[in-house]
């Protein structure tokens, strides 16, 4: 079932937590709401769940406007950040709860609990209680409780954020596969851009209550709508250089450095003076040897990641991060040379931050 937000706002007193949100998912799609804490993504999800009232606007599940339908009648399932397992019930009772409150026959409940438990490999835990389980196991139970019914939508509020790094990556994959197999529309909230990129069919990036961009992960990464999205997605973050465009000399000049522009750049930048240039760390080449046309830079620090190296540089007064191979070595304060791949640069309006 598809989900739609039409001009939805949520205000507390004078401050808008969600501001005029318009968002529509397709049926069976996995949409990730991504943004820093306080951006309104969780409030959006809670409004969809009916745990918060929208101040204005309409929320639809399928063709039904759900604003005035209480949570329990919205036919949804939700996985909470802290899992919200019922501590006094066994795992089996936890998973069975959505069926129990719908007065489904006990045989049927048992059958479905066993099936779901098998699917998530928690069959051996059914008689235990939540406190006896590890974080990863609890996570599976919370998932099992959500998928035991066939609701119209799954809501997930940072479901992986309480897991350790290794488990998070593993569960991420399992979640993606599970969602594919079930084919149910899923709205997934996270602040972790890696989760968003790997899981989503489409990502909705939010900031301060406003939707910034709603697009596929590839487009979010490669064609960020504005400087905020460009900065938020990708690790290490995109480099930004404030500067001026000199249309006559085909140059982009900041206080610290000057770069050559070509025709296509100028076409894009026509009529502009001050712009922000954005370049991802993997699009900056670093070398200890000088090449013609490369810029001189000073190494501030290098971070060896094993499979690659992050090089923190100073080019003139600009601080820049570049991604180099694992073999790259340089001393503190040593002199190196960089090349900015001009064909991979993005430009943003210095005032509005919008992509040009």
């Amino acid at each position: 079932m598809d989900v739609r937000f039409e001009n939805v706002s949520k205000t507390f007193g004078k401050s808008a937590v969600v501001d005029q949100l318009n968002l529509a998912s397709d049926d069976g799609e996995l949409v990730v709401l991504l943004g820093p804490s306080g951006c309104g993504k969780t409030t959006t999800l809670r409004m969809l769940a009916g745990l918060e009232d929208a101040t204005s606007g309409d929320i639809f599940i399928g063709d039904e406007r759900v604003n005035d339908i209480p949570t329990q009648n919205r036919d949804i399932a939700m996985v909470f950040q802290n899992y919200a397992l019922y501590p006094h019930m066994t795992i089996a009772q936890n998973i069975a709860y959505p069926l129990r409150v719908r007065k489904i026959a006990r045989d049927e409940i048992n059958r479905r609990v066993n099936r779901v438990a098998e699917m998530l490999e928690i069959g051996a835990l059914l008689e235990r209680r939540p406190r006896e389980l590890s974080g990863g196991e609890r996570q599976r139970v919370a998932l099992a409780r959500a998928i035991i019914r066939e609701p119209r939508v799954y809501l997930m509020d940072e479901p992986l954020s309480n897991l350790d790094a290794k488990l998070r990556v593993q569960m991420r994959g399992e979640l993606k596969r599970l969602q594919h197999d079930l084919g149910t529309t899923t709205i997934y909230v996270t602040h972790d851009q890696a989760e968003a990129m790997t899981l989503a069919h489409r990502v909705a990036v939010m900031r301060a209550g406003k939707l910034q961009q709603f697009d596929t992960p590839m487009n979010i990464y490669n064609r960020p709508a504005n400087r905020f999205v460009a900065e938020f997605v990708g690790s290490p973050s995109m480099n930004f250089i404030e500067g001026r465009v000199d249309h006559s000399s085909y140059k982009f000049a900041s206080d610290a450095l000057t770069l050559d522009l070509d025709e296509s750049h100028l076409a894009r930048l026509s009529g502009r003076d001050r712009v922000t240039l954005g370049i991802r760390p993997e699009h900056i080449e670093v070398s200890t040897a000088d090449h013609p046309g490369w810029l001189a830079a000073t190494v501030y620090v290098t971070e060896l990641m094993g499979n690659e190296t992050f090089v923190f540089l100073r080019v003139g007064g600009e601080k820049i991060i570049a991604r180099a191979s694992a073999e790259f070595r340089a001393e503190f304060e040593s002199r190196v040379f960089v090349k900015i791949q001009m064909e991979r640069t993005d430009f943003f309006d210095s005032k509005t931050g919008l992509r040009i």
Partner: protein
Amino acid sequence: MSERYAARKVAKSQSPAKQGRPGATRTRLARWSKYVLLSAAVLAAVTPVYWMVTISLKSEVDQFASPPRWFAFTPTLAHYYDAFFTRSFAKYLTTSLTVAGLSTICAVTLGTLAAYGLARFKLRGKLDQRLSLWILSTRMFPPIVTAVPLFLMMRDLRLLNTITSLVIVYTALNLPFVVWMMRGFFRELPRELEEAAMVDGDSRLGALVRVILPLVTPGLAATAVFCLIVSWNEFLLALVLTQTDASMTLPVGIAGRVTQYEIKWGVMSAAGVVAMIPILAFAMAVQRYLVRGLSL
């Protein structure tokens, strides 16, 4: 290698202190004086109670012996028989049990519902917080302040010397306490539990009954026990509201005998022991919550 060297160096630098061992002696001395002081305190706390228990079990000859007989006496249950079969103490005991039980049920039921409302809902104009504080503030009235008007009110309603009046008054006496205790217990539970239950298709009240109440049961039980203790121990309001044999509680009954039959020490002590025993049992049951309960 170097680690071991460092360890040896530390050991060496400590050795002069070890030789004389003044520290060790001082700790041992401190520990012994701790035990002596604590034992003295326990003795002071328990001896008077023990004395009452012995009096309740002593024949009058032993009671008035000089010097006092702390251990050597022939125990007898005569005073208990006297108090509870010859005199009316059995009746007082029943009254106390009834009043404490009924008022506790009322206070816990009403108070728990209110506490849930106050713990889980944000009301307009911070009404939830204001109401909570107002409820707490009613607990601060000295009992004598309300005793005078309550006596007159109950007299007007012709409820003096009835168990009903005590049940009503004790319910009100315990309500603020129940509200604050239970509000605390509710607030300790993550809100997501009810939210999960509602997402799973349960109503708000269904979530309260199936998810929240089972989780606060220990706290609820402790709160109820505190109410029982308060109702059982209460004296001033019972004294003011009940004066007949048929309606007075155990404390009022004992207090009456204390002044009338001063010399009937055995009866008085026997009644005192019976009044004390359930309280001590209750107190042990709620030890874990004692601080929380008593600082409200």
